[in-house]
């Protein structure tokens, strides 16, 4: 199931929600749409499902354009953030719904529907809940019911809006691995929306980072973390330290610190250098920074060092050379990435 989005644009009364989104999802892929609230990720998901119509652009699923196809004819499964289970139906009736509303010619026989519903519920580990009502089952179970209901129509594509948003932290963690496993076992093509970077990086094959209705970068989680394409992606994924710098002739100089950082492809002038705390090294030689504090709990030592321009957090491995509080030492920021300031 290949999904291709071409230059999708959508605005709500003058407010731009999607500002030219293009994206291709490969068959069997598990893709995360990651971004802060208001970045357009939910709008994008709803546009895919047909719950929102885009102003311009194309949604092509397996070669056919879905742009003007209504939601009920798309055959795309959608798991809502708050599940949206039919509250007056039992769990089994909820799951059977998508099969029961089919036109008579395509509707399976009653006992076939029942058998399929039961096998789906068993597959999702909620077979015992068939006769309960949504309000009688827990949050995690409700999510499984919502998933079973979406899967019952054998969707070409499964969309999940903040699948773990309404669950407490403990349930959330265990469900992540379970969902990823289910996706692989059922050979689904799935797209899920999240604002939680850990969730996206842990579960997805690829992550699309959205900001203000645009995709900043689409990449595998490790590459996204190691090679952020923009300052926004760098700061959104993982801890980042932001340092103002000035670029001239391919080298960035950070205010108040000696040495330079390679800044190939960055125009001369003001720029931003971003670095993660564990990418910084402290050197016995030099006196560019002063150690304010050392915190040695956990697998890494966390240090606060200050320089003229401000305070920097540094994470050092336990075995690395570590200065004492009050000492002055050198600092190596050569692994910083330099971005044009926006």
């Amino acid at each position, binding site marked *: 199931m290949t999904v291709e989005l071409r230059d999708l644009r959508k605005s709500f009364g003058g407010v731009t929600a999607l500002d030219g989104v293009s994206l291709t999802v490969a068959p069997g892929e598990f893709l995360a749409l990651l971004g802060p609230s208001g970045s357009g990720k939910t709008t994008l998901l709803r546009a895919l499902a047909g719950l929102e119509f885009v102003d311009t652009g194309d949604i092509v699923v397996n070669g056919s354009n879905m742009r003007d196809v209504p939601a009920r004819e798309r055959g795309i499964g959608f798991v809502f953030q708050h599940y*949206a*289970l039919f509250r007056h139906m039992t769990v089994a009736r909820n799951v059977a719904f998508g099969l029961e509303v089919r036109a008579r010619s395509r509707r399976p026989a009653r006992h076939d529907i029942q058998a399929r519903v039961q096998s789906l519920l068993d597959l999702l580990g909620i077979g015992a809940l068939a006769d309960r009502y949504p309000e009688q089952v827990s949050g995690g179970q409700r999510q499984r019911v919502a998933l079973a209901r979406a899967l019952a129509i054998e969707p070409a594509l499964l969309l999940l809006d903040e699948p773990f948003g309404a669950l407490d932290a403990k349930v959330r963690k265990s469900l992540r691995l379970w969902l990823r496993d289910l996706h692989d076992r059922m050979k689904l093509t799935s797209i899920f929306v999240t604002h939680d970077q850990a969730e996206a990086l842990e579960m997805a094959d690829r992550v699309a980072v959205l900001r203000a209705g645009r995709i900043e970068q689409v990449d595998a989680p490790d590459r996204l973390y190691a090679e952020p394409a923009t300052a926004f992606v760098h700061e959104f994924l993982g801890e980042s330290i932001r340092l103002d710098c000035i670029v001239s002739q391919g080298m960035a100089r950070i205010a108040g610190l000696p040495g330079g950082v390679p800044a190939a492809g960055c125009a001369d002038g003001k720029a931003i250098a971003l670095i993660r705390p564990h990418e910084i090294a402290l050197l016995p030689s030099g006196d560019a920074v002063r150690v304010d504090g050392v915190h040695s709990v956990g697998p890494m030592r966390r240090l606060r060092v200050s320089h003229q321009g401000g305070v920097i957090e540094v994470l050092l491995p336990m075995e690395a050379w570590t200065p004492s509080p009050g000492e002055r030492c050198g600092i190596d920021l050569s692994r910083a990435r330099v971005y044009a300031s926006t």
Partner: protein
Amino acid sequence: MLATQERAATRLALIAATVVLLAVLLLLPLVAVFGEALSRGLAAALATLEEPDALAAIRLTLIVAAVSVPLNTVCGLAASWCIGRFRFRGRSLLITLIELPFSVSPVISGLVWVLLFGANGWLGPLLERAGLRIIFAVPGLILATAFVTFPFVARTLVPLMQQQGAAEEEAAMTLGANFWQTFWRVTLPNIRWGLLYGVLLCNARAMGEFGAVAVVSGHVRGQTMTMPLQVEALFNDYDWVGAFTIAALLSLLALVTLAVKVVLEWRIGDRGGALL
């Protein structure tokens, strides 16, 4: 000690006052209605219901309710669905318009139809040429009643639908349900108790409306008299038993409505929904 006693005494006095007030204002009139109707025995009371004029009034009231209640149910459903599901230009104006009949005196609600369709009204001459009669006829009674009772269903459903949101309907759509499947299987079951409640109140008012109906009726006995109008007419004729028997019938309707309403409120409250 003294303080508690005093407080207890105050409480007792307040409760007693409330009970007396309720008895005088609500219970006593009800007893009076039934007492007066049965003052010459049940047989005499029932006999008055067999008078042709009384039968005609009952029939007319049922016809008026049978047309205006379903009409308002459908319109109320449509209006509350639009208001609850969509943001559109003129939405707040629509909400205000729906409530208009509540804030207008029933006499005005009747008069507007006379002004529109009466012999000297805007459209009167046109209707006369077409041979249609609305004022002083059944269509006028239905129009006036429908106008007065319009808000009941919509007013009950708007907050309910806003509170429930559109997510379940959207879910139904993604699962392949068309509009009517979504309506019958998802929307309607979710609002059924609220809807029934609104219909009930609408019906009670439709059958009991006096002011607006009085203006457009023309008081033709046996033809344009609904039950409330018949009560007044018989009362003016000094036919106490006749007047109060029909009044008792209307009161019975009120009591049944009240009982069903209590049951419904309990049902709705039980399901954790509904702002009524």
